[in-house]
């Protein structure tokens, strides 16, 4: 019994110290003075983290939009409300699906790659040797990646939303025969820029920061062995996905909770 209590205490202390380390790590790396060198590094990471994720976001966005339209149509047509399809597709994408699904894909595609990359740099002593050369790896390696993730996820979310709405149009209008004018005009009437679009962007900014933070911290803090790298990569995807889903509920409650 005492052993169990001691184990619980140990686990709590470990968790708290990891959270503390992660917090310090974020503060130390995110507030770096911008420099020309740093800008180039950031652009490079925007390519790896952002541009390389565009393909997966395009394909998933298209399919999610098409499925939404298909599912929505079969429900709405029962009420004779198939005119509202555009509104339904756009609102679900902008408020919810685009930020969340893009963040989950981003965690799997870019997050795991960041963890593995930084972890391998640690295992091959590249981070240590950089420190010994007198360059802070938090500034040189971590900060550009953190900022790249923070900036690129909202952009990916916009791409996801746009492609999704277009996918919904393909299925709803071109295939199922919803009137094109009502698809667009209902959407235009019901989607509010501040309430819907901006709130969705705020969500994706938060997700971008959290997912990238988890990914780079797991890479920086891992035990530098092959097993350590594989565990940390898994942890990145699991923790980041759970954090996105949990935070999504909290943010949704704060943004839309007082409507009903």
């Amino acid at each position, binding site marked *: 019994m005492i052993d169990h209590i001691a184990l619980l205490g140990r686990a709590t202390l470990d968790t708290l110290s990891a959270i503390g380390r992660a917090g310090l790590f974020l503060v130390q790396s995110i507030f770096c003075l911008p420099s020309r060198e740093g800008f180039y590094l950031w652009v490079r990471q925007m390519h790896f983290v952002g541009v390389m994720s565009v393909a997966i976001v395009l394909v998933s966005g298209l399919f999610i939009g098409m499925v939404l339209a298909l599912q929505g149509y079969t429900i709405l047509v029962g009420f004779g409300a198939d005119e509202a399809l555009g509104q339904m597709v756009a609102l679900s994408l902008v408020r919810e699906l685009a930020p969340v699904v893009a963040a989950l894909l981003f965690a799997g595609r870019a997050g795991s790659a960041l963890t593995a990359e930084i972890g391998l740099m640690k295992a*091959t002593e*590249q981070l*240590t*040797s950089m420190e*010994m*050369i*007198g*360059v802070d790896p938090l500034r040189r390696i971590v900060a550009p990646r953190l900022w790249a993730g923070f900036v690129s996820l909202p952009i990916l979310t916009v791409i996801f939303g746009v492609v999704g709405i277009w996918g919904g149009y393909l299925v709803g209008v071109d295939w199922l025969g919803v009137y094109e004018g009502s698809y667009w005009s209902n959407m235009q009437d019901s989607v509010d820029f501040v309430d819907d679009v901006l709130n969705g962007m705020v969500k994706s900014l938060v997700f971008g920061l959290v997912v990238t933070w988890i990914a780079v911290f797991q890479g920086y803090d891992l035990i530098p062995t092959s097993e350590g790298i594989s565990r940390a990569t898994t942890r990145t995807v699991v923790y980041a996905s759970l954090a996105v889903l949990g935070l999504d509920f909290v943010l949704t409650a704060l943004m839309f909770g007082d409507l009903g």
Partner: protein
Amino acid sequence: MDDPIMVEVENLHFSRGNTEIFRGVDLQIPLGKITAIMGPSGTGKTTLLKLIGGQLVPDQGQILIDGQDVHKLSRRSLFKLRRRMGMLFQSGALFSDLDVFENVAFPLRVHTELPNAMIRDIVLMKLQAVGLRGARHLMPSELSGGMARRVALARAVALDPDLVLYDEPFVGQDPISMGVLVQLIKKVNQALGLTAIVVSHDIKETLSIADYVYIIADGKVMAHGTPQTLDVDDDAHVKQFVHGEPDGPVPFHYPAPDFFDDILAPAGQFS
């Protein structure tokens, strides 16, 4: 030893988990000389270098480099001090996303405002010194272990540091690249007049270039002296280590029950 002191280690204690690695180590590294730190595997020689480089913090005691206490410096001053140090890692630790030229140019680019043409000249000079000027466009993954270590050596001395730390420079090298590295370390030291600390357990090679030697075992300095005095030292520990005798005060066998009893143990009582 009347030479001025570059690095002074005083009463160093360090433990990892429950294992005590150092129990009061005192070292003095003279300026402009090659000092070797030797000892059997697992005595924490690499840990000592990391302590000197300020990457680990000792439990007790202090390390002074040029009079500054490494572990009392702010992060900024520590990084400033590290610009005067070069370290050669066992694995080379080249940056895998940069080619050979850019790896050697890295310290120059981040710490100096030199124009590109001058950086190019310096890098080519350093690469020429290690014989790899022709390999400047290769990526680290295309280099053999010995070549990677030579590039790492060029990078470590790119800024003409005052102090170079060599972590096991000879491990895992074939005889030819071993000979090349021994020559290089000696030559670099003489040409640049820098202070070098070589951590190693390759006795012959290390003794051939070292001006002064410390032998560390059991968390303490067991012996120190010039290679000549250690060679004729009578202490059983020193003798066993320097002459590479398999058995002596450091036992060949891991603790085990009596061999005879173990072999003849009746079936069912095997442990």
